[in-house]
């Protein structure tokens, strides 16, 4: 069974109860912070914090494992490329022909990979604990037109459907002796055409049916103000979380730009 693209984990935790707009602010400010810092320990600290948040929300370990597995190629590729192409610093650990491996380049490469991990986990903290309806509702509340929100919701809803469609179409074409492993790179890319075209035809057919189904349920009726069955509201706790978030963000940003915290990959100051 493939991993579900619906990342949301249904629980009744404190983090699930937080208004999705607060979580969106956490993603935005958290990402900015990660981009502002370059220090290895800051990245590790942010990873510890996001893991604590995720586990406190009751997200199962296999979901966290999946994120790490997805990030693994990046975690290998970035430090490797950094070491090869950006040799810097006085401490040379190893030198052969054009390759010069320095301690600083390793630190920077690892720090950059961890920065991407941290940003990924900040985003997944939001996605693991926010269902699609609330996610779209929060964006609409922030000013996104409803139709755009609906498009986003449909897009998210159909990711697993199209993944499933890809699997079935791929099986159907392989059952007609289509070999996806034969030949060089270009031959193999070309052999995916029967799958892609069949998927495209199915997708067009689905989109047409979906549009008609929505229209027949009165979507886009002029002069009607849509109502909402389940609205989201800021609770006192959400105001407190927002204030705490802004305070931490401002404090860390002051440390970073006033006192130079976390500009070096290894040393905090």
């Amino acid at each position, binding site marked *: 069974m493939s991993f579900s693209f619906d990342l949301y984990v249904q629980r009744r935790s404190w983090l699930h109860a937080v208004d999705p707009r607060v979580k969106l602010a956490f993603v935005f400010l958290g990402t900015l912070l990660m981009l502002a810092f370059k220090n290895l320990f800051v990245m590790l600290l942010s990873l510890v914090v996001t893991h604590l948040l995720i586990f406190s929300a009751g997200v199962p370990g296999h979901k966290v494992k999946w994120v790490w597995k997805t990030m693994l190629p990046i975690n290998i590729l970035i430090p490797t490329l950094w070491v090869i192409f950006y040799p810097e610093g006085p401490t040379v650990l190893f030198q052969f022909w054009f390759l010069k491996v320095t301690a600083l380049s390793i630190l920077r490469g690892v720090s950059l990979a961890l920065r991407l991990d941290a940003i990924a986990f900040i985003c997944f903290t939001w996605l693991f604990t926010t269902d699609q309806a609330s996610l779209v509702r929060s964006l609409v509340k922030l000013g996104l037109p409803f139709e755009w929100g609906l498009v986003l919701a449909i897009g998210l809803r159909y990711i697993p459907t199209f993944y499933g469609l890809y699997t079935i179409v791929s099986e159907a074409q392989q059952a007609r002796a289509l070999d996806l492993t034969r030949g060089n790179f270009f031959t193999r890319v070309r052999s995916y055409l*029967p799958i892609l075209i069949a998927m495209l035809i199915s997708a067009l*057919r689905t989109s047409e049916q979906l549009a008609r189904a929505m229209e027949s349920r009165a979507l886009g009726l002029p002069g009607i103000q849509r109502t909402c069955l389940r609205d989201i509201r800021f609770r006192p706790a959400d105001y407190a979380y927002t204030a705490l978030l802004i305070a931490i963000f401002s404090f860390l940003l002051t440390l970073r730009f006033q006192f130079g915290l976390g500009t070096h990959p290894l040393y905090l100051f």
Partner: protein
Amino acid sequence: MADEPFRTRGSKLETPNSAIVVQDLWYSYGGEVTALRGIDLEIQDGDYVAVIGQNGSGKTTLVKHFNGLLKPARGRVLVKGLDSRTCSGLRDTADLTVGQLAQTVGYVFQNPDHQIFCDTTREELAFGPRNLGLPEAEVRGRVEEALARFDLKEYADRPPAVLGYGLRRKIGVAAVYAMRPRIFILDEPTTGLDWRSTMELMDLIGEMHRRGHTILLVTHDMKLVAAFSQKSLVLRDGQVLAYDETRTVFKHSEVLRDTQIEPPQITQLAKRMVPFGMPDDVLSVEEFYAAYCRLGG
């Protein structure tokens, strides 16, 4: 198994007549949901077997093992292949790719739109034979023969994607037919078809069977099972509940009750009339009528 009204297991041993042999087959999706639990089965050359059971009973999972789309987690699936290594001509699907198995096992998917992608019906039918590496003259011959057999000549140069559902369904079957596999697996081929299109398609499948092909029909339509298939394989929770002559399977409808399978109404009516001398294994209106005439006469 002595107290069971019908057989639940095929022979574990391969015979010269075996088309497919399944030995202690287990399969689970992602190691979490166990879909098949120790299936033993033998399907003989030229059999017409209906694979039936409620949703989630493991029908599609089982037949996907026959053309290698799924590989056993435990156990073996042996299929009669072109390149035989055993005396009975059977080969383990674990050693073969889906493409290699496609020469022997044709799989018609439930939705024809999952395979249709070419500009013309003719090209669509040629796709499979070309993948098998056949010479172009042979491919053309097979395509023309398939077009004629499935009455598709009129649509040969039209884009299949824009044709009606019934025609697209027929093209899906014809495209696999053009590859000339010995074994045909049809996964709910009549879903969404009207009665006339269903009968047309079933007649074509019946004709393939008469020409010596082994047919495996996955379906929920018990009228079709009663009318066309010689044997029925009933699955429940990934296990074989019954595998016997269709007549025998439907005769013991009480055993099938908790699988949500109901024999055709004519079979049920005949069973209610057993006290009046009606046989208890009637499968069709014609049989019922004949028996009724004998009773009346």
